[in-house]
Structures are given as structure tokens and as C-alpha cells.
């Protein structure tokens, strides 16, 4: 560009326009980058925040929820609330804290009906099939059931009692004659409603509901459990299924219920041939190997 024209008003205004545009572009670029990074953090749901029934995984949920609070309004138990600025949960999204107010698992699920988006799955009509979270007996040292005391409060308040939580009877080693009534949660039935956490009689609950992503382990896809494969196939898949044979010196056998290695009673101990011959070659060449 010839320098003689630099001071022409059109050039000056064009330059200003370019500078302004550049400034906007750079500013907006920086803001977008910051927002992009921030949303990576916002996607992490704190362990105490449970989403309403029908919410998918956190990424899907945050992409769909427009933060209108209609679910909050239609919850008859004031379970849900919208995250405020400063909360650890993504701004404006609905959640509940089980220890404060758990979900009462309404039969008609009004929160889902109220939702104007696909944030809450409108195909979910059976509340028992919802998976808001998963209860975990996180502290077996504090849970009084493990100390041999009768509690079972979590078991009794569970809306799907005996399917979502069952009691597992175990021998009480300490007293020697009583049973422990251990609460065990089953992920195939637990909805994560949080009533057990709310009801836990400890100062800090020993059973807690966590978002599924935190609470649930996933077995590698390639695992095949032999006993299940066997049941499916109707027969053993490792053939032939021969009884195990021990290779023992004559006059001895192995039986675990009889506490292991047993000498046949027929032979008196003093008449018993020593297990190993005096000639080491005999031992080496013994039929059946070592």
C-alpha cells in the first residue's frame, strides 16, 4: 500500500475497522477458550449431587437441560433444587442431596413429565427402573450392622426392600453365637433414591448414594465367567470333565474333608513301606512321574 495514501480518511477508517474487528475476534476467542476449559470442569458432578430420575450421563444431561426449573416446581417433596452460582454443580441444573431430602420415587414421576427437554428421559414411566445413583455401604467400620448390632434401618426404608437392599447373614466371630445382618445393595434394583442414606442412623451416613459413574464398576468386555458359560451351554465347555487325580505313593490318599493327606488304615504304620525307595533311580523312574 503506497505510504502517500496512508492518511486518507478511508484508509484510516478501514484500519480502525480492521483493528476493531481483530480486537473483537481475539477477545471472543479468548472468552470461548476459557468457556471451553470451564465446561470441562463443570461436567464433573460432585459425589453428593444426585440428578433427578431419567437423567442420562452428565454430558448428555448438561447438553439437554435448559435450566428452567420446571422439574423443581413439580416435585411435590421439594427434593430438587437448581444449582446457584458458587455451588459445585453446573450452574442452574437440578439436583438433590440425598442426606437432605431424598427422592420419594413418585409413581407418576411428575419431574419427568414437567421437563420440556430430553434432559429427563420421557420414556421412563416406571420409577423402579430409574437409575439416579447407586447406594454403597461406604464405611463398614462405622456401620453398626458390622459390629453385630441390629439396625437394618436402611433395609427397612428402601422402597424396593429386599431387591435393592437385602440382608446377608454372617457369623458373628466376636460373640461366636450370633449373626451379623449385613446390608447389601444390588445395583440391578437400586434406583439411587437416597432414602437409605437419609435414614442412616449414624451422624455421618455409612451408606451413601453416589452418581452411577462414581459408584459402579464395569467388568472388562472380554471376561467370560466359566460357571455361567457352562450353565448357558448346558454342559462343561472344557472337555472331558475328568475328576482330578492325585499322584501319591502307594497306601496314601488325599481327602480334604478328612483334612488332607491320609494313610490307608489297612497298613500298620510300622509295616508301611517308606514313601521313597533307597535307590534314587527308582524314585526318578516311578510310574507317573514325580
Amino acid at each position: 500500500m503506497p505510504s502517500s495514501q496512508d492518511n486518507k480518511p478511508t484508509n484510516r477508517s478501514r484500519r480502525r475497522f480492521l483493528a476493531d474487528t481483530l480486537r473483537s475476534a481475539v477477545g471472543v476467542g479468548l472468552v470461548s477458550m476459557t468457556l471451553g476449559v470451564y465446561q470441562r470442569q463443570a461436567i464433573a458432578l460432585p459425589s453428593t449431587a444426585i440428578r433427578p430420575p431419567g437423567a442420562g450421563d452428565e454430558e448428555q444431561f448438561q447438553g439437554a437441560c435448559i435450566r428452567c426449573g420446571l422439574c423443581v416446581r413439580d416435585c411435590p417433596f421439594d427434593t430438587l433444587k437448581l444449582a446457584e452460582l458458587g455451588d459445585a454443580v453446573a450452574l442452574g441444573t437440578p439436583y438433590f442431596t440425598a442426606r437432605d431430602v431424598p427422592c420419594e420415587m413418585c409413581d407418576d414421576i411428575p419431574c419427568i413429565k414437567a421437563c420440556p427437554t430430553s434432559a429427563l428421559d420421557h420414556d421412563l414411566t416406571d420409577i423402579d427402573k430409574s437409575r439416579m445413583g447407586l447406594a454403597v455401604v461406604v464405611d463398614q467400620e462405622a456401620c453398626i450392622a458390622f459390629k453385630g448390632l441390629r439396625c437394618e434401618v436402611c433395609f427397612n426404608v428402601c422402597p424396593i426392600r429386599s431387591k435393592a437392599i437385602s440382608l446377608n447373614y454372617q457369623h458373628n466371630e466376636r460373640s461366636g453365637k450370633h449373626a451379623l445382618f449385613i446390608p447389601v445393595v444390588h445395583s440391578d434394583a437400586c434406583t439411587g433414591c437416597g432414602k437409605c442414606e437419609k435414614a442412616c442412623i449414624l451422624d455421618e451416613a455409612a451408606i451413601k448414594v453416589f452418581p452411577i459413574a462414581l459408584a459402579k464398576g464395569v467388568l472388562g468386555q472380554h471376561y467370560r465367567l466359566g460357571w455361567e458359560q457352562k450353565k448357558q451351554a448346558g454342559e462343561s465347555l472344557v472337555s472331558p470333565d475328568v475328576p482330578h487325580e492325585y499322584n501319591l505313593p502307594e497306601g496314601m490318599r488325599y481327602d480334604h474333608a478328612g483334612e488332607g493327606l491320609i494313610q490307608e488304615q489297612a497298613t500298620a504304620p510300622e509295616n508301611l513301606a517308606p514313601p521313597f525307595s533307597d535307590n534314587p533311580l527308582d524314585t526318578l523312574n516311578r510310574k507317573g512321574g514325580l
Partner: protein
Amino acid sequence: MEKGQFPGAEAVKVNGWFKANRFLLLRRVSQVSLLALFLAGPWLGYWIVKGNMASSLTLDVLPLTDPLVFLQAILTGNPPVQAGIIGAAVVFIFYFLVGGRVYCSWVCPINIITDTANWLRRKLKLKGGTTFSRQSRYWLLLAILILALLTGNIVWELVNPVSMVYRGLIFGMGMAWGIVIAIFLLDLLVAHNAWCGHLCPVGAFYSLIGKFSVLRISAVNRQACDDCLDCFAVCPESRVIKPALKGADQKIGPVILSGQCNNCARCIDVCAKDVFSFSTRFSNQLPESKESSNQREVMS
């Protein structure tokens, strides 16, 4: 405007205080009563409207959904269900009819804050500050839409001050008061009209609807203008007035067609000569005979 007078002083003298502030008052009534409708439920137990500006349900039948957040949800790949779609369509059609940025001047709570900051700026005669492009808001709008598309998350709603304040008032503010104060200070000290006129992508979105919307402000009576510049002083987007008010010579019609116009009608309020009035975009014909004869008179 005479020296030392506030913009609109002449109109107050000529038309009386009430008439010279009637649209400003109406707008405040509109903004406050909309908020009151939302608050009547949680505060008083009258559930006329549930939800917030993002999406609401009125009298258990009428769904309303903000079209911008609706658009973002679509871009993330999570389209809203029927109620949301109907709601967004209703709101879109409404603003298409009455003017996109009617949202800004008649509904948005931030507008009260930024108007106050601007008023104080005029009172305290604060001038200057940084300058940056008024186009920034469109860039920002584009950026938040791209972010929604790329991340699959409605990223803008994590920080959007507009919805944050509205939702905050209804559901609990948390630390959102800090944002209110920040925007107030931004507009007062950093740049004139910084938020609504330069940055807010929500306003930018509604101004795009406004580009095509029906109800418009028109300088129908522009030959009566006595160049007091009061309208320019109060207009939040003052550039939009010039072509309509001063464009007679260039054969530009009197209707303010720019989507950036808020339809706040403050210009109608402050004009002592009653130059402006509400009109539609379809009545933008040059009243040839009358105006050209006027011009001929002036020229001769």
C-alpha cells in the same frame, strides 16, 4: 437540548412529566410484573407461571421456551420435546411480531441495571472508557453456538448473566449478585453501554429476529425535528436513529429498520416535537408528495 438540561427536559415542559416518561414507566411495569408473575408462585403460592425465562408453563397450559437456549440444545444434539418446541415457536413468533429486542427493553432484568448505569453515567458526566466493536456480540453469539456444537454442552448457560439473574431471583441467587454489580460497574466505568450494546449475545440473537420483525419505531414526523439530539442521548443504540431521522435526502424511509433498535420507545418519550411513533416495517414508504414539497420549501 439546551446546555445543562437533561435529555427530555423539553418534552417534560411541553408534554408533562408523565407523558414524557410514559414508555419508560410502561417498560418498568412490564419488566417488574413479569418477574412478579414468576415470583407469585414461590413467594405467595399463586402458581400462575412456573419455571423461568429459559422455559415456563403458564396456567398449566401455555409453554414458553427461550429460542436461543432452545437452539443451543438442538446444537448439542439433544432436541427438546414437544412442549419445548411449541414454547420456542410461540416465543419466536411473538418477538417476530413485536420486535426482537423488545425482549431487551421490556422483559430482561439486566436492562434495568444497565439503564441505571447509563443514566448515572449521564448524570455524573462520565465520558470515555475503552472502545471496542459493537459487533463483538455477534462474534460472541457465533462462538457460543459453535461451543454448543463442539462440546455437546450448553456452555453459555454456565455463565449467562441474563438467565443467571432471572433464575436467581426466582430460584435463589447464590453469588449471582456479584454478576449484577459487575455488569453495573462495567457499564458505568469501563465503556458506555458495554454489556447490552457490545457484548450480550442474547441481545444479539434477539436483534437478528428484530431484523425481520413487524412492529418498528418510525420517525414519521421527521420534518418537525429541531435537532435537539435528545433522542440520540437516550437511545441505547443511537446509530439506528440517524438514517430514519435524517435520511429524507438520501431517500431513506422514516422507519427504523435496524434489528438493534430495542423498541424501548424512549425516543418517543423524550421528543418534544412528537417526531417518533410506533409503526410497522411495511409503512416505510417515503411520503413523497408531502416530504419533497417540504424539502422544496426549505431549499427555496
